[in-house]
């Protein structure tokens, strides 16, 4: 019975191959790399590689549809001769500083209110969080309409309350007002993250500490400075670091609301990089602009790894 014997011989061979793979996958030193490799492959291909491409573009005179040559750091240096870039550099710090500062103060205040006993707690929390979940590009359209030069509801309200002189500011057409407008929208959209994270930090502070402080005669202000704030410090650190990098690299709000105008007064690195790199085609210069985000990213990553991860583990 030759056929039967072949059949018998073939089956164990197949089983043993499967079993061997199965055995390997049962061992941590094999299963681990197999499980991590899809993520690793994806991130190398679509984060690390484009990042290296950005580095390459930034030291070349790349232009859409033309061969490029190595020109060293000329892009980075030449940018300083451009008014638009110098303005953008300044804007980025003003925008980030003002937005993160306000978000921190308002976020802390609102979190402390929400930490009190309240009616409809869930509903209120849902309302507070809403600006964070709605697509930013779309909600910014709503703000665009609210700041419209002819039909601004902000101005209408300001005039009705007697806070403004008619006709009220042209929010998106005057430089300082335009900057105020983009900062306000960024605060509006980023506040929920501060509130919810700080609230989680507040809830985790043990009641006994407040009771002990109260027993020692500390008033509400002293309790805030000597109990709440020191214990919140790690949480506040995380929130500010995260927010700094994402505010600094913001794109959506400025793009929809002002397109960087009037006269570049609200451009940020990301919006200017897009304008120079894609709309005018000077990819090399655009890449150099977006790489000015990198030092800030480095500082934030360094701080995160140093302080935050130590606490997470």
């Amino acid at each position: 019975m030759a056929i039967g014997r072949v059949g018998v011989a073939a089956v164990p061979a197949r089983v043993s191959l499967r079993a061997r793979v199965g055995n390997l996958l049962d061992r941590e030193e094999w299963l681990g790399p197999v499980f991590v490799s899809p993520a690793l492959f994806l991130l190398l291909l679509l984060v690390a590689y484009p990042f290296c491409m950005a580095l390459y573009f930034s030291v070349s005179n790349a232009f859409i549809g033309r061969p490029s040559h190595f020109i060293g750091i000329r892009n980075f240096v030449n940018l300083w001769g451009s008014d638009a870039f110098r303005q953008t550099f300044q804007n980025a710090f003003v925008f980030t500083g003002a937005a993160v500062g306000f978000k921190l103060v308002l976020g802390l205040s609102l979190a402390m209110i929400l930490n009190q006993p309240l009616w409809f707690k869930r509903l209120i929390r849902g309302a507070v969080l809403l600006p964070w979940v709605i697509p930013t590009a779309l909600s910014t359209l709503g703000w665009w309409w609210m700041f419209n030069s002819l039909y601004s509801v902000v101005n209408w309200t300001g005039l009705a309350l007697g806070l403004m002189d008619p006709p009220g500011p042209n929010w998106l057409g005057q430089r300082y007002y335009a900057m105020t407008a983009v900062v306000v929208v960024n605060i509006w959209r980023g506040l929920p993250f501060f509130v919810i994270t700080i609230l989680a930090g507040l809830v985790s502070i043990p009641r006994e500490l407040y009771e002990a402080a109260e027993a020692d005669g500390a008033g509400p202000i002293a309790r805030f400075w000597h109990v709440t704030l020191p214990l919140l410090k790690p949480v506040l650190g995380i929130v500010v670091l995260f927010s700094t990098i994402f505010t600094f690299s913001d794109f959506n709000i400025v793009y929809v609301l002002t397109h960087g105008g009037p006269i570049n007064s609200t451009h940020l690195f990301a919006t200017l990089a897009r304008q120079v790199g894609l709309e005018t085609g000077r990819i090399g210069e655009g890449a150099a602009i977006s790489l000015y985000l990198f030092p800030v990213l480095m500082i934030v990553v360094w701080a995160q790894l140093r302080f935050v991860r130590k606490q997470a583990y």
Partner: protein
Amino acid sequence: MTRRKLTQRIAMHLLLVPFLIFALFPFYHMALTSLKQNKELYDRNAVPLLITKGPTLEHYTKLLWDTAFLTWTKNSLLVTVLSTFVSLVIGTIAAYALSRLKFFAVGTLGTGIFVTYLVPTSLLFLPLAQVVNSKWALVVTYPTFLVPFCTWLLMGYFRTVPKEVEECAMVDGATRIQALWRIVLPIAVPGLVCAALFAFTLSWNEFIYALTFTSSSDQITASVGVTSELIRGDIYYWGSLMAGAVLASVPIVVLYVFFLDYYVSGLTAGAIK
């Protein structure tokens, strides 16, 4: 409740009022505008806070029948569902490996994935702009920010599953993959739901990649369509624009209403983009 406590509580609610107006007014105004008739919308003497001349659905019908809004929404759904699913699978196995298994360079890999989560998309979109102009480019690129996030979130959840539960199953003859599938994943369901919700929200809301990688009307997503196609030159159709912003937010609002607590816990765990 004593009288003092009651007054205190009412005072707290009063303090909340300005914050709530700030958070909600833009949505109210958006919805209101989308329901107003044009003659009231462009009447500078009308009160902008209310509808006084009767509501209308004309902006919505115009949006649905005269523009490609339904196509944009379909594109958004396709991109979002596919990239969420892919990211969840890749993120789950990576998170399991990084939080549970011991192998070569596991610590470095974990740190590496965390760092890529912090790299803003605005740093990478220029070199990637060379890729083809298609919604499939979005399905491929969205996982670059969704996978690090899902991995990061799920690592936390997997660490809370006791190792012993899994070891028990393996002593009883299950392989490691069976133990993961039958024991660990069912325990980590809340984490998976949370990761899926956030991945869905992040990719639905994504704007800069969508704006860069898609341009023709049959490829763009809802947020790009509403912000670019509805604005023609200097003439703005404010009613339809606001109707588009409202409708394109509906899927997220529906999820949000049902899963509010997951959003809160995910945000606390560091979902920030």
